[in-house]
Structure formats: structure tokens, C-alpha cells
């Protein structure tokens, strides 16, 4: 949620200034949201190199197409949509070439290396990120946008360019898939040891 102090211009105002020719406005907008944008990119493509490339593509695109922004969604929704689309674009192109397992290790390395506070919740996050990698990409993207970033189903549908029903369905299936991998994180539930959930459900 974009905080707006009294001092700070809103996201929409920054975008308006950018369109009007202010050469600093877009950079400020980007810096304001870059960690979230990075998170969504990294978690969508699961590879820091590609995440950086995708984010760069996306930011250039957003920079140039800011005039198209109609204000019918939040600026953050618009930005995330561009980022996610750039990521999915990369994933589509990556799909035609052999998968590289190195990407996963790099993603982990990058997360470890850049964690500003390694002691804090690292275990949880690594588990979550490792678990996310188990998901098919569309499910992962939906889950990242809805559960991790907190967008509404409708906003997620706009971001991912699909219907709210599809978002719900992808999230549901993704959660079911994740369950075996993350249930242990809720260590206080004895049920999580006892119950072994049906693998995967459908895909």
C-alpha cells in the first residue's frame, strides 16, 4: 500500500509529473516501489538475472507508456501489471529452451546474499521461495500477487490479464500444492505432522 505522507506526492501525482516532462518523477516513483516490484519479479521468474532484465524492460515500458495510464486502477497495480507481464513474457521465451537448474541456486544465493537482515525469518522465506518454485508459473504468479503482495483478486486479475475466477482457481490450486511444503512452517499444529495431504490435487 503506497504510503502518502503529507509531504510526499502521491503515485498518481508523480506519474502525472512524469508525463508532463518532469525528468525525476518516474525515478522517484520507481524507487518508492522498487522492493515490491523486485519481489514480484524475482518470485515470478525465480532467477535474479531474468528478474533484473524483466524489471528493466518493464520500467522502460512504463516510462514510455505512462501517458496511457488512465487512472482506472492504482498506479501500483498498473506498475505491477507491467512488471508481471514482462516476467511472463520472459518465461514464455524461456520455455522454448532447456531449463537451467542453476537459476534456482542463483535465486537462493541472491536472496541470501542480499538479505539486509539475514537472521530475520530467513528460514521461512527460503522455504516459501523454494516452495513457490514448485508451482507452475501461472499459479505462482497468481499466488505471489494475491497472497504475497496482498492485491485483491480483482486487481490480480487486472495485473495478470485474466478473470477473477481464474485467479481464484489458480490461487486455490497453488495453495493446495504448496501445503505439503509449507505446512511444517506452522510448527505448532500437530495436525501438520499427522496429516499428509493428498499430493497436488489437479494441476
Amino acid at each position, binding site marked *: 500500500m503506497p504510503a502518502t505522507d503529507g509531504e510526499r506526492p502521491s503515485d498518481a501525482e508523480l506519474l502525472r509529473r512524469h508525463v508532463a516532462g518532469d525528468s525525476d518523477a518516474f525515478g522517484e516513483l520507481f524507487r518508492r516501489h522498487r522492493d515490491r516490484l523486485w519481489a514480484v519479479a524475482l518470485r515470478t521468474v525465480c532467477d535474479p538475472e531474468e528478474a533484473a532484465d524483466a524489471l528493466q524492460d518493464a520500467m*522502460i515500458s512504463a516510462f514510455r507508456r505512462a501517458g496511457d495510464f488512465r487512472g482506472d486502477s492504482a498506479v501500483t497495480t498498473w506498475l505491477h501489471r507491467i512488471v508481471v507481464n514482462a516476467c511472463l513474457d520472459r518465461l514464455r521465451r524461456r520455455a522454448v529452451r532447456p531449463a537451467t537448474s542453476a537459476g534456482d541456486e542463483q535465486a537462493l544465493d541472491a536472496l541470501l546474499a542480499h538479505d539486509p537482515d539475514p537472521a530475520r525469518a530467513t528460514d521461512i522465506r527460503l522455504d516459501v521461495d523454494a516452495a513457490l518454485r514448485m508451482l507452475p508459473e501461472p499459479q505462482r504468479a497468481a499466488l505471489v500477487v494475491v497472497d504475497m503482495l496482498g492485491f485483491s483478486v480483482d486487481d490480480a486479475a487486472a495485473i495478470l490479464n485474466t478473470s477473477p475466477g481464474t485467479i481464484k482457481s489458480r490461487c486455490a490450486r497453488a495453495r493446495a500444492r504448496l501445503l505439503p511444503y509449507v505446512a511444517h512452517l506452522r510448527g505448532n*499444529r500437530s495436525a501438520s505432522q499427522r496429516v499428509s495431504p493428498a499430493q497436488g490435487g489437479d494441476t
Partner: protein
Amino acid sequence: MTGHPESGVLAEYQAGLVTGRRRASIASHLATCDRCAGLSDQLGEIPALLAAAPHPAMPADVARRLDLVLAAEAAQRHSSERTADDSPEHRATIPGPRRRWDFRLVTQRILVPAAAVVALAAGGFGLSHVIGSSASSSVAAGSEAAPAPSARPANGTAAARSEAGRPGAVPAFETPARFQVVNSATNYLPATLRQQLETELQRHTQAAAAPQVLVSGSLKGCVLRVTHGTRPGTLVLVERAHFQGQPAIVIVAVSGHDRAAWVAASGCSASTDHVLATATLPGTSAP
């Protein structure tokens, strides 16, 4: 199924995707089955669990790179407001067909009978501060029409030529000082690559007190990609030259105690490189 719904069904149930009699039957099952109720509880906790996972901060090098890309965009917009080719759709999110990202080293993929890029990471120089930050090929495409080169050899050649032929036509990047791209008639050969590079380094290394940026989008992206892993601020030479008779670009940067050289095809950009040769030079007499 023996009455226990699968976790996928439970998740859909929670998401409101199961309706009618099926929904009623799951509800009554959950009321009586501890196992499934527990499973349902766990499923319901996943969103909170995911929300609690901290976001990884953007790595500093990525942040710096993107800041520079945006600064370059701003400078380019400023300087080219009157030019018509500033189409917003210029490959911003859809960067051309079949661009590839297998940017790692030395793959000798000589797909392009075209110009090459020689990148030399020079150890021991404490010299300049080229921010090897990449303007992606998106920027490149917007600024100088150097399209995805690997898939289009002819274009790659043409783009390299035109780029070499009109260095002044590249949109200016004004904020930090420009890193001078050297135009040279040197024809690098595999057998003498190291000696030639040594010589060239002595002639052209640029000491710089302030951050510098490469002007050309594709070239800049290429440098970042080819010298991947090299810390920013270590580049000391970028040179348009030849390699085995083909137009080439030479890039020199500081990297550790050794100096490593890459030779890549000219279509090299932020997202593709065509490394034709590499060399490692021993640390040199540091300045």
C-alpha cells in the same frame, strides 16, 4: 474418492469456487472429519504465511542499474522530444524474437559473421568508474535501432556498421560524464590478442575521477552483460575495432588481480552476447 476431498478441492472450496450440492457435501464432511478440517485450517493459513514472508530487498547493483536506465530514458526523452521515432512501443516489453539469455562466457557461438566485441577485464587498474550499468536492448532499440542481433545476422552486421559509422548519432547521456568509446583501426587476431590488448590498454585506458556512463544503449548493455560479475566502476576501455577482420568492439574493465578479455559478436546487447574469444591477462603494472 472415499469421501475425503483432495486438498485441491478444499482449496477451491475455500475460494468459493465450489457451489451447490458439492459445496454442501464438503461442508458437512468438514463438520465431521477432523483430518479434513485440519487440512482445511492449514490451507486457510497459507495466505497469511506467504504474506509474512519478507520481501527480498532489491540488490544494490540492480537498483543502481535501473536508476541509470531510467536516467538514460529521461535524458533520451529530453533530447529526442522532437524526433518522431520515439514510439512508446519500441520493444519496451516485447524485446524481439528469440532473444536469449545464455549470457555466460565464451560459448564460441559464432552465429554472426559480423563485428565482434572484445571485452577485457583488466586487473589491478584502480582507474575509472564506468558504471557498467546496462541500458537494455530496449533502450538500444529505442535509441539506435540495433535489433536483436543473434537471430538476424544481416541486421547485426548492418547495425554494427551504422553504429560504428555514426557514433555521434547516439542520444546523449548527460548526467554523468560520458565514457569515451574509442574508435580504432586495430584488427585483433586470436594469436596476438593479448599483446594487442596490452598495447591498446596503454594507449587508451581512461582514468576517471567521476562516474561515467557509456553512451550507446546497446553497447552499454553489452558491456554489462559481457563483463557480468565485474563490479561497476571497473571498466577502463571500450573500443570499436576489428576482430579477425570483422568490425569489433573492445571493452576493458578492472577485475580482481587478473585481466580477462572477451570477444563477442557485435549484436551483443544487454540480453544477448556472442562471445567469440576470451583471454586472461596477468595483472599489469598498475598505474
